[in-house]
């Protein structure tokens, strides 16, 4: 392991809670509905984070707790029952309904597991009910997906068939690319989790080889292990280096030679390196500060340093699973400063003191930092854009070079005259 500096920080945070992950999960599984049991704050959070007004009727909603629901839990359970009945009557196409716990529902100890169990019996053969918590008191941003996937594992049947299981939501086009490459490598049985249809859950067992596409799935990984799955240890498929090692690790697990992997992916690498050049010119030598939010920060830092030659000032992460991130941490340059957790005020002091060229942060902080003359990149874009894989490396770099390029254009001293 490289000599990386680990720090922990506590204090006020500026991060999304796990409910936010509904924004991409509901798009991944169009036959599912996500029903948050929470407050008006929860409803307002999701709509504000996602800008969801474009939908006639979105596939997520909030059962908003009212005063009378707080008075007696029995009534609250009955009320939730009523809301679910109405919802299913209105949206008969729903196949899986996620009951999502929130801060208030956790604090009043609303037992969503029991509610889900009862509903499962009543709607057997029609709708499946699953529950998990996306509450801010327990989860940060992408951890919501971890909770949702973990909740689905008990529904997955067992099978000893050998297969490659890609775990973590990917953009559909990226997933298609990955499947094609794996097929070319000679791995034919490939499944994804979460699947595109919530009812088509992959079967798992001791010959299931899990390859993580996202770094924020600690609980899911643990439960998959319990079901006998083998977890392939690899860095994450961000950038050329990460993706290459990711493919190599998968190939090794299937006894496919390294040579074969290089044969298949070399043309992609060459093409991608070429595409990366123009971004690298802008990013090289620029100083980067990553604030914690998505848990993608460590992989992004590795890519932006190793392949784009940026200098790392500080790499924030809301939560660090050293075991899961081992391969990534090994690839980081010596003396990288990783900070787990956050004290947003102290961290912003460090941002200002270190005079970065680019800060990766949440949307609440971006404009205030821009107003101070610091270029920023919104972290939420990383979870909405197709950034994984060799083919996407230049696009990923582009997310970071664009604000710098824009800054250059706008602060340029010479005006072009005609």
């Amino acid at each position, binding site marked *: 392991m490289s000599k990386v500096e680990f720090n922990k920080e506590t*204090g*006020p*945070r*500026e*991060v*999304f*809670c*796990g*409910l*936010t992950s509904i924004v991409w999960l509901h798009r991944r599984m169009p036959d599912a509905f996500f029903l948050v049991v*929470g*407050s*008006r*704050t929860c*409803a*307002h*959070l999701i*709509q*504000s*984070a996602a800008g*969801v*007004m*474009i939908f*006639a*009727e*979105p596939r*997520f*909603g*909030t*059962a*908003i*707790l*009212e*005063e009378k*629901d707080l008075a007696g839990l029995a009534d*609250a359970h009955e*009320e*939730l029952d*009523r*809301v679910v009945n*109405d*919802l299913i009557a209105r949206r008969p196409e729903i196949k899986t309904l996620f009951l999502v716990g929130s*801060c*208030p529902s956790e*604090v*009043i100890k609303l037992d969503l597991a029991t509610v889900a169990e009862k509903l499962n019996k009543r709607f057997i053969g029609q709708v499946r009910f699953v529950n998990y918590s996306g*509450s*801010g*008191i327990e989860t*940060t941003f992408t951890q919501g997906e971890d909770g949702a996937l973990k909740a689905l594992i008990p529904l997955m049947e067992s099978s000893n068939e050998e297969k490659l299981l890609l775990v973590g939501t990917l953009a559909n086009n990226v997933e298609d690319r990955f499947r094609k490459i794996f097929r070319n490598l000679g791995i034919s049985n490939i499944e994804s989790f979460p699947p595109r249809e919530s009812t088509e859950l992959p079967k798992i067992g001791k010959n299931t080889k899990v390859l993580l596409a996202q770094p924020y799935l600690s609980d899911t990984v643990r439960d998959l292990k319990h079901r006998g799955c083998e977890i392939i240890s690899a860095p994450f498929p961000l950038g050329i280096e990460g993706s290459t090692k990711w493919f190599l690790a998968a190939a090794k697990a299937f006894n496919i030679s390294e040579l074969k992997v290089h044969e298949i992916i070399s043309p992609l690498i060459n093409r991608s390196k070429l595409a990366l050049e123009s971004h690298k010119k802008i990013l090289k030598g620029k100083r980067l500060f990553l604030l914690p939010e998505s848990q993608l920060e460590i992989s992004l830092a590795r890519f932006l340093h190793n392949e784009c030659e940026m200098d790392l000032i500080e790499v924030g992460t809301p939560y660090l699973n050293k075991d899961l991130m081992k391969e990534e941490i090994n690839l980081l340059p010596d003396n990288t400063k990783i900070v787990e957790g956050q004290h947003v*005020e102290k961290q912003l002091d460090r941002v200002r003191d270190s005079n970065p060229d680019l800060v990766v942060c*949440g*949307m*609440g*902080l*971006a*404009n*205030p930092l*821009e*107003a101070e003359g610091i270029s920023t990149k919104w972290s939420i874009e990383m979870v909405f854009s197709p950034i994984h894989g060799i083919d996407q490396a230049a696009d990923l770099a582009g997310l970071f070079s664009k604000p710098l390029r824009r800054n250059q254009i706008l602060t340029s001293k010479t005006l072009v005259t005609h």
Partner: protein
Amino acid sequence: MELTLWTYEGPPHVGAMRIASSMKDIHYVLHAPQGDTYADLLFTMIERRGQRPPVTYTTFQARDLGGDTAELVKKNIKEAVDRFRPKTLLVGESCTAELIQDQPGALAKGMGFDMPIVNLELPAYSKKENWGASETFYQLTRTLLKEKVSSSEKINPLRWKELGRRPKVNILGPSLLGFRCRDDVIEIQRILSEQGVDTNVVAPLGASPEDIERLIDAEVNICLYQEIAEASCEWLRRNFGMEYTNTIPIGIKNTIEFINEVHNKLGLPLTNKEELEHKSKLPWYSKSVDSNYLTGKRVFIFGDGTHAIAAAKIAKEELGFEVVGLGTYSREMARQVRATAKDLNLEALITNNYLEVEDAMKKAAPELVLGTQMERHSAKRLGIPCSVISTPMHVQDVPARYSPQMGWEGANVIFDDWVHPLMMGLEEHLIDMFKHDFEFVDGHQSHLGHTATNTNDFLNSEGKKEKNSKEGIIWTESGKAELTKVPFFVRGKVKTNTEKYAILRGIPEISDETLYDAKAYFS
């Protein structure tokens, strides 16, 4: 428990944030879990604010709940005070903290600070954003001025005469995330100044706690947005005898009435009454012949109380539209909106459910929708032009240019903003008219896109006499042909009405004559 897919208003603590962020030298410590910081992006993204909202979130976690969350609150309060040195501190809770009952306001008051502390108790499970903003502004005003209540005499609105200066007023209610507040304030200050009236304080937008303390230096309060300021204005009236205005100066008639009201309250003679009619281009633009086609345009209005009521008046009296629907999500203003609707022979729609609004919109078959960002989306789906007149809003509703809703310039802006989408609507009509001409190239598309109506698909459907409507009624070729001649924006309504009529009369086949019979029957 209420199933909500989307909400017009946020929770009440977001209202409190609107007040805190609008002001200077104030800090708000919010007892809240992580995630509630999402609210910051409303200010930094929608309003493009270059400063973070002055809010510290205590960020308690599940593991803190077993221990001492009260200590966590105190630690955060102390750090926030040390770092930001606010002149007034707001302390409150979001929905989750309300359940654990740490009473952060009381804790803060016990910490020995010498600045005023406002303890905000905003019930998150029964109230919403605008109520929270109003309550916060009221509690702040009360806290900062209560010591002066007993020592003060009632304020005589005519005292400026004895003091030998121009009369002074406060402009109360404008806040961040309000609709065009930034520009309304400029416009109203300009109008007042022309009338010989000075502005003492604008609050909460841009005000400091010291400014709140000198509210009583003015003679009269201008209550610019009732949703935010009425509670404070009422308290100032009861305790200091300060009169406040009730007229919202949106539209020409209301602006003139507002000026009259200010003059009356201050005992200031109005000398330039004639001039006022000519301050805005709206009256002439509306009178000019080009505007003839605006007559009787069917308009559907939904928004906050203040803007919906004003829009109804302008639409009917100043632009000659027909208001075919009126509603609000502001329950606090439901009574007034109902009264306005009644005058228009309508029943007001009071709801927080956007799908109900969309249904009402569909049924009313308007030619123009005036609403919030959500109605803009609904109208787009239905293929109806729309102009946004109220929050909740989008980043595009905070324009770079000067763009008030109030006063003379506000009336100009309203004329343009409401009429331009209709011009486009007319263009749509022309395209529809000429689409059978051979010069017409397929692919000419309206900016409204393909969402228009299902009626067009129905008309294009082949087949002579099969049951071609869902009620099992048969449309004959002559009936279909007649329906194509009906302007596109009422076609859906005509189709529904004709079918309704056919069912009522037991007519199995709809011919061109049936359309006319139905038209006569429903008119």
